[in-house]
């Protein structure tokens, strides 16, 4: 038996080694880098500078705007995707005809890349075209706005495109959750004379709570990491007055265009800490839940 285990461990050893080096080793490397003065291609004397790069970030206007944008994005994107996803899933699950066709349409954006989505939405949200033209034609002229070109909107326009792209994800999660509800519950509720609303409120909704939790974690960590979509819609500059800028984009520009490696490393470590804060409790919760089943 012990020999078997040894062979088994040898089989996953290459992957484990790769993950140790490329994930944990590299994170350690980036962390060390972020604590030094390596803010140029050639630094004559590499020095440990403590938290200097981090402190500088929290006095940097662009980074503060980025953090605020991330928050605004999350506050629009997460509820938007949850509501649309739940509504779509309930509709799809209500015993309709052509369910397959509707489902295929609703989840289709998930198959596209953020870049493709961004290229289309950039034109849809062009102030003199796209949605503004449609609003005019529908007599909804008051809805016209400058979208991502208006500094007071910026990231909110990106959130709209993101909801379009990823609400299908929550829809798929909710749909799987709804399908897992045993038919007997439904029949029992019928016998008890429950209304559809009561059934939803006291049976469906509580049973979907773990699904909602998973969705919030996944959507939340996407909000922290969002990058491609901003680049494709607003461009590498992050829009007028950084109104669409996000930390991931600032990290990219700082590191790979300005060669300020230590500074870029600091941004990425802050991002990593925010993601860990969200994901680590969730991961240990779902693994423990699985173990007890």
């Amino acid at each position: 038996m012990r020999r078997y285990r040894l062979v088994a461990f040898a089989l996953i050893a290459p992957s484990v080694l790769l993950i140790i080096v490329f994930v944990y080793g590299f994170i350690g490397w980036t962390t060390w880098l972020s604590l030094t003065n390596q803010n140029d291609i050639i630094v004559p004397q590499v020095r440990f500078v403590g938290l200097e790069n981090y402190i500088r970030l929290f006095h940097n206007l662009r980074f503060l705007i980025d953090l605020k944008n991330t928050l605004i994005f999350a506050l629009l994107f997460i509820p938007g995707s949850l509501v649309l996803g739940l509504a779509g899933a309930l509709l799809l699950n209500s015993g309709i005809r052509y369910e397959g066709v509707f489902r295929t349409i609703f989840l289709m954006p998930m198959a596209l890349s953020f870049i493709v989505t961004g290229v289309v939405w950039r034109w849809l949200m062009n102030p003199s075209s796209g949605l503004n033209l449609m609003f005019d034609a529908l007599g909804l002229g008051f809805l016209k706005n400058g979208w991502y070109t208006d500094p007071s909107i910026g990231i909110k326009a990106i959130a709209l495109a993101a909801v379009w792209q990823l609400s299908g994800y929550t829809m798929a999660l909710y749909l799987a959750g709804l399908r897992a509800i045993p038919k007997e519950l439904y029949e029992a509720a019928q016998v008890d004379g429950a209304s559809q609303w009561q059934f939803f409120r006291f049976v469906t909704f509580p049973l979907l709570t773990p699904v909602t939790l998973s969705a919030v974690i996944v959507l939340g960590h996407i909000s922290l990491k969002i990058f491609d979509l901003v680049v494709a819609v607003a461009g590498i500059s992050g829009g007028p007055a950084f109104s669409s800028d996000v930390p991931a984009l600032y990290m990219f520009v700082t590191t790979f265009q300005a060669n300020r490696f230590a500074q870029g490393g600091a941004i990425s470590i802050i991002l990593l800490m925010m993601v860990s804060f969200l994901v680590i409790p969730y991961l240990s919760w779902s693994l423990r839940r699985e173990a007890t089943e």
Partner: protein
Amino acid sequence: MRRSRLLTLFIYGSLLLLAVFYLIPIYVLVVNALKDYREVSVEAMWRLPQNLTLASFAKAWNGDPTTGMQGLGQNFLNSVYLVVPAVILSVFLGSINGYVLAHWRFRGSEVLFFLLLFGMFIPYQSVLIPLVKLLMAIGLYGSIPGLILAHVVYGIPITTLIFRNYYAQIPRELSESAQIDGAGVLGVYRYVIVPLSAPGTVVAVIWQFTQIWNDFLFGVVITNKPSVQPITVALNNLAGSFIVEWNVQMAGALLAALPTLLIYILMGRYFIRGLLAGSVKG
């Protein structure tokens, strides 16, 4: 709980509204990609094309030497050269890992699984600088093999997860009876697990294909020359250029979307299974 006619009307009305919302960008993509350049203007975005033409696809693929516009053809092929080996390798590794973690639990295997899974959620920004330095040191920076390496390594967590959950459904008795017949760890994998792997493999292949084909971050950081860039990076450059008409941009976007869109439409069921696997507890 019979449904009133009003409720039925409400349900189908809402379904249609949602369908319109999800189809609007697709409509704009397709309609404008099929237009002649003379028909293209920002005011006419919603109008159907008067003469259907594939000219903008040809231009998006081949480029235009007179304006110096780079076509996407080479980049489409780059993405193919990237995706095929990267998918095969990461799916193979995921299958082995998933088998071990599902059937040969050892002390610490839960912790190991946790450490693997965490790699799926990290912002890749936190590993990019060392990754670039390592690729430079081993001479793979700026090349497709460098990009393949990145996608294989960072694809290990999700493929492992997909296969572990899939193999966990294979009854233990099957592998145990093979062991009694004298099969070792590799024998069980070869004769019991591999023949039952098809559905799980399809899920993992489709998922990895979509992820790698659609990736932008690794592509833009690791490949600096247009001649080796994957299609997402090239499309973003094309769309950011002022000399490119937007019917050509739309055609380029459709070209970039076509492979994953086709797979989704033909094999959507498996795509959604991969999607659900990504939330850890499918």
